[in-house]
């Protein structure tokens, strides 16, 4: 009975810990590494930091043509 109680307690604590991890820290929106909360840096000389030039129909005047 005590072993079962310990096991259930461990499961509950483990789940609580996991839910804490999921929302509290590494899965928090501010920890999202693939989507940014501020704009990406502009590359003014080479356009290497852009996926595609003129993707929205406007060209980069100083970047490589």
């Amino acid at each position, binding site marked *: 009975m005590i072993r079962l109680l310990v096991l259930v307690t461990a499961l509950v604590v483990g789940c609580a810990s996991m839910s804490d991890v999921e929302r509290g820290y590494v899965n928090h929106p501010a920890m999202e590494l693939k989507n940014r909360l*501020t704009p990406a840096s*502009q590359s003014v000389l080479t356009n290497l930091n852009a996926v595609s030039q003129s*993707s929205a129909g406007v060209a980069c005047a100083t970047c490589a043509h």
Partner: protein
Amino acid sequence: MRNLCSLIIILVWPQLSWGFSQQFYTQYQMQSALSQPVTTANTSSSQVKRTEHTYEYRIQNLGDIASIASSVTVLQPDYSSYIVRDRQGNERRLSEIGKKRTQEYQGMAHLTLATSSHSANLRVTSSLSDSPFKMQKIDLSFEEGFFNKSTLLGVEYSYQQQVQPLSYFIDRDLATKARAVTINTSSIALYYEQIISKKMKNLVKTTSTQRLGERPRNFGIEDRLGYALTRHIYLQGMAGYISEDEQSALHDERGYFNLAKGELAVTYEPIYDLLLSVSYGLLIESEYEPRTDTKTKVGTDQYGLGFQYSYGDWRFQLTGAYYVAQIANGGSVLGGITWTF
């Protein structure tokens, strides 16, 4: 037949749509830049401006695994900064050539299939109206999660075809040559995201992109680290490097490019679901011209701000950036609203 179709829809639609949610998203974006001449780039002093307004409709959790989205973007481009040169070397602004353009339209369709451990995306983007930069693009991605998603492996591929106005340039051997009018761009990326501890995770991404017939293939690597300092303060750091393959032949008057970048960002959550972010980024770009053995280096500082707030069915987003470089400075502002119903 019509009754049969109606019956199928009545029977099947509730099964598919059980638990699904719909989102309507709209955003407004404005960009501008003030540029100075670059000695190696044959460019003129110019101002690039762009405004765009996007309307997106998304259905999530369709049949428990699918999400679909479609959007229309209304663009108001300013082509007065884009210089077109004819064979004789005369320069004209693109805005002075052809009919006057006030608005352009772009459409996007997006399908996501996701289960607990993996997800796949297909996105198709295309110009819907006439444009001097008419484009079609397809994006494919797949992500697999391991160990309760503490490890993520992903691959992304995109292919874009885009036209550009006919223009000529003078090569290093003083010959007048035409630039390509259709540019095909392919890009592939592999990434690995790992939760390191309860408060830290890391993303490593490698990329390779080529604008066929225009630029040598480039290879890049980027590492982004996130750390939760407290329950209210989150840090992100990024370092990356991109370089063009110097074994490949050059196609125009420009040399080989490379780029090193770094960024630090801090996000503060004073109350639940309100995120305030500030960031600083440094970009160092280089161009090496082997035919004249010259090297040009330009540094750019960028300061960014971000605001995101969710309230009930609504989410508000506002971001802004201002950058300062030796050859250009400018900024961008983006505002977005999402309504989930």
